[in-house]
């Protein structure tokens, strides 16, 4: 790979990872139900009269994360590190639901994890259809089309992360809708259809549809986009939503809805923001997946940052549940405990993935733990009963804001062990990128404010690392619960945040400047968000741009940390040692393999859990930015990837579903 690095000097102009920020935000309402002014702390855990739903067996892939504890752990062990090199395509299916944005539809971004349950593979598409496939052949059983509005109402692209599945504990034969598959749409409609036939369930909402926007009543500016499938437990759907970030100061406040899985009726809601803060803020919603400890009866939610995302001068009151991981009582939605991960968030560091739940062994004790990955690159390992840190979280002094009106938090939580997935400082100017830009990278860097982690946005521009597009994205990590080895992919992205006083911002808008500018209407500042690239689109910072790492959760020690994937630009692949920005997540199998797509280079890989070495890889039609599903069907183990692409990585999209298995 050294050769590639050297030769690069000629091809380099082509390099460059266009990395934008990945956000989904949120908006939303406060509806009827219990919503206390979030005590950042504790009640006691609910009585443990809970247990896993009997139909959700460990050999299925029945939820977005494989199981409710978000372990992403597959028990099939037919495919091993020794034979994975023989893995071949078993079948392939194309949904037809794809758009490159050139027509009248926005580009599609497809990150749906397929579900394997009820002897069927269920997938949701970015056109919000549900398709049921035969798990062994990929042949279509049925499809449901809600004829959804295919417009960029909140997100710039048509996005979908899949479907959810529920079934009655004792399904009655011949009766419809004893098993239901759900899909949400960008315009806030949640559909429930019979899992065997694909026909809408009349008993669910109105003729099979619940309009979640009926509860969008405060600071209503856009629909509550249902891009992430609900989490299902005990006949209840737990539902968050995504909205539009960065455009307004006051957005709909983040609300989590608990709905009856059969009827769609509202059971309870949870709001992360206190009512008195609503006039000048919003969001702090849950746009990623959630996890559940069935025995404790706790729902763990990743709460995003409040609006406006880059300026907090008008929301100085404490918002303890914003940018937090919070545990709710599954039956009531009441806060059991909450831990804020970023104080007074002015970087858009949404908590963005379901925490992974696992019991770890430390000092001779078994501790019920959770691991929360983050955009800021920290891995927070907490006692999931109490929210208390298992590995220390230190409050460290951080740089002050120099923006009039802003008051950054004096300290921020810092985790030294496990080692952060991204370093504390950015890697410095990449000589190659600097040379190509005739020194523009270094001269730009010299002009910017750069005080390390949690440097606040500034009027002259601040280097932010890790920034909103960095660290670990919505997929989170995976864990092998037999060894407590935790694996997580991450990205290293340097971004520049510049606040712009309102008058100047309006002038720029009149001048037609728009790319990278966001108004935060209602606040004194708009802002500009740039990824630190040179004129050729090449990152100004030194690689690697993405890594895959493994940790021993019993000690916190990092076992290995390898550059992962390859940057691809104009078709050219950059050296392995550079790694790739990643979106997606790994799955671990019992046999000691990691399956993951996630990289820019449109490849899916099998990696040795012990060493981090790539054992197998296969080319697919676009970046596979969804986590795979792994299951055994009729005696054969399958690994299924949805290949949809993501405009954040590359303008390359697909509608491919591809299954791999060992040859007969």
């Amino acid at each position, binding site marked *: 790979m050294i*050769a*590639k690095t050297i*030769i690069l000097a*000629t*091809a380099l102009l*082509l390099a460059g990872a266009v990395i934008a920020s990945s956000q989904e935000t949120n908006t939303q309402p406060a509806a009827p139900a219990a919503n206390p002014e979030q005590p950042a702390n504790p009640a006691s855990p609910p009585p443990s009269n809970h247990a896993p739903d009997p139909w959700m067996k460990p050999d299925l892939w029945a939820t977005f994360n494989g199981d409710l504890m978000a372990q992403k752990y597959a028990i099939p062990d037919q495919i091993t590190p020794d034979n994975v090199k023989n893995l071949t395509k078993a079948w392939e299916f194309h949904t037809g639901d794809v758009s490159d944005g050139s027509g009248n539809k926005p580009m599609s971004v497809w990150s749906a994890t397929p579900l394997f349950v009820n002897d069927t593979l269920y997938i949701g598409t970015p056109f919000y259809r549900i398709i049921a496939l035969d798990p062994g052949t990929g042949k279509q059983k049925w499809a449901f089309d809600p004829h959804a509005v295919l417009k960029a109402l909140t997100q710039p692209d048509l996005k979908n992360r899949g479907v959810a599945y529920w079934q009655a504990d004792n399904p009655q034969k011949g009766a419809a809708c004893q098993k239901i598959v759900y899909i949400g749409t960008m315009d806030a409609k949640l559909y429930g259809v019979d899992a065997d036939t694909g026909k809408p369930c009349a008993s669910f909402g109105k003729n099979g549809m619940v309009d979640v926007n009926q509860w969008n009543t405060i600071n209503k500016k856009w629909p509550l986009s249902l891009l992430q499938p609900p989490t299902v437990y005990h006949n209840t759907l737990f539902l968050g939503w995504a909205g539009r970030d960065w455009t307004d100061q006051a957005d709909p406040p983040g609300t989590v809805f608990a709905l009856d899985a059969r009827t769609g009726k509202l059971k309870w809601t949870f709001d992360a923001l206190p009512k008195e803060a609503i006039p000048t803020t919003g969001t702090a919603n849950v746009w990623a997946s959630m996890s559940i400890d069935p025995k404790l009866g706790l729902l763990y939610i990743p709460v995003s940052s409040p609006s406006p995302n880059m300026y907090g001068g008008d929301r100085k009151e404490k918002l303890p549940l914003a940018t937090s991981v919070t545990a709710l009582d599954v039956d009531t939605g009441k806060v059991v405990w909450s831990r804020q991960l970023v104080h007074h968030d002015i970087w858009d560091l949404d908590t963005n993935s379901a925490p992974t739940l696992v019991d770890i062994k430390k000092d001779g004790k078994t501790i019920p733990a959770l691991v929360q990955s983050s955009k800021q690159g920290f891995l927070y390992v907490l006692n999931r009963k109490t929210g208390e840190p298992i590995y220390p979280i230190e409050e460290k002094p951080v740089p002050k804001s120099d923006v009039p009106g802003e008051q950054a938090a004096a300290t921020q939580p810092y985790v030294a062990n496990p080692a952060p997935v991204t370093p504390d400082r950015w890697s410095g100017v990449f000589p190659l990128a600097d040379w190509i830009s005739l020194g523009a990278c270094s001269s730009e860097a010299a002009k910017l404010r750069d005080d390390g982690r949690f440097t606040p946005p500034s009027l002259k521009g601040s280097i932010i690392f890790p920034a909103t597009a960095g660290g670990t994205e919505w997929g989170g990590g995976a864990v092998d619960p037999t060894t407590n080895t935790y694996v997580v992919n991450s990205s290293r992205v340097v971004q520049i945040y510049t606040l712009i006083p309102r008058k100047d911002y309006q002038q720029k808008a009149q001048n037609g400047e728009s790319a990278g500018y966001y108004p935060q209407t209602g606040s004194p500042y708009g802002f500009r968000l740039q990824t630190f690239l040179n004129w050729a689109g090449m990152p100004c910072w030194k690689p690697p741009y993405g890594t895959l790492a493994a940790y021993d959760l019993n000690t916190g020690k990092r076992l290995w940390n390898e550059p992962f994937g390859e940057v*691809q630009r*104009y*078709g*050219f*692949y*950059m050296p392995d040692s550079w790694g790739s920005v990643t979106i997606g997540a790994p799955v671990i199998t019992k046999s000691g393999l990691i399956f993951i797509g996630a990289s820019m*280079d*449109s*490849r899916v890989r099998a990696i040795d859990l012990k060493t981090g070495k790539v054992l197998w890889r296969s*080319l*697919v*039609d676009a970046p596979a930015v969804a986590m795979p599903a792994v299951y055994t069907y009729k005696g054969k183990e399958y690994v299924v990837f949805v290949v949809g692409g993501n405009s954040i990585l590359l303008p390359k999209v697909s509608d491919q579903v591809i299954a791999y298995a060992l040859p007969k």
Partner: protein
Amino acid sequence: MSTAATVAETDEGGRSARPTNIPLLLLCILSAVGVIVAAVDTFSQGNGIAFSGGAYLVLCSTILLLIASLIVMLWSSGPGWARGILLFLIFLDLLGTGVAAYFLDAYLLLAVMALGFIAWLVGLFAGGSRSSRGRVVA
């Protein structure tokens, strides 16, 4: 050297015909193969580089390589400096296309360019230049 590199074609009547430079002929053939491989790379959906700028680039560069190789082979009466420039440009094309193929992970195209480079080298040192033009050797 030129004995091996340049052969005379004779017709059935035993008359001497146009001399053929085997390395240049090989280069032409390999260039044509390069065009085909690059075209397949450019238009075969699902190979990771189809319809990318890099794929179009190597398609163009291999077409130029083919044209230049044909000119050098067929334009035997051209001035030496012109053939020299063309041979140099062919070298750059082979090198550039090879590097591009390497970064595209288009290893078949890279192999073709490597063979082409060998043919170019042999042609250069074995009489592909003006000095061997017109000689009839068997």
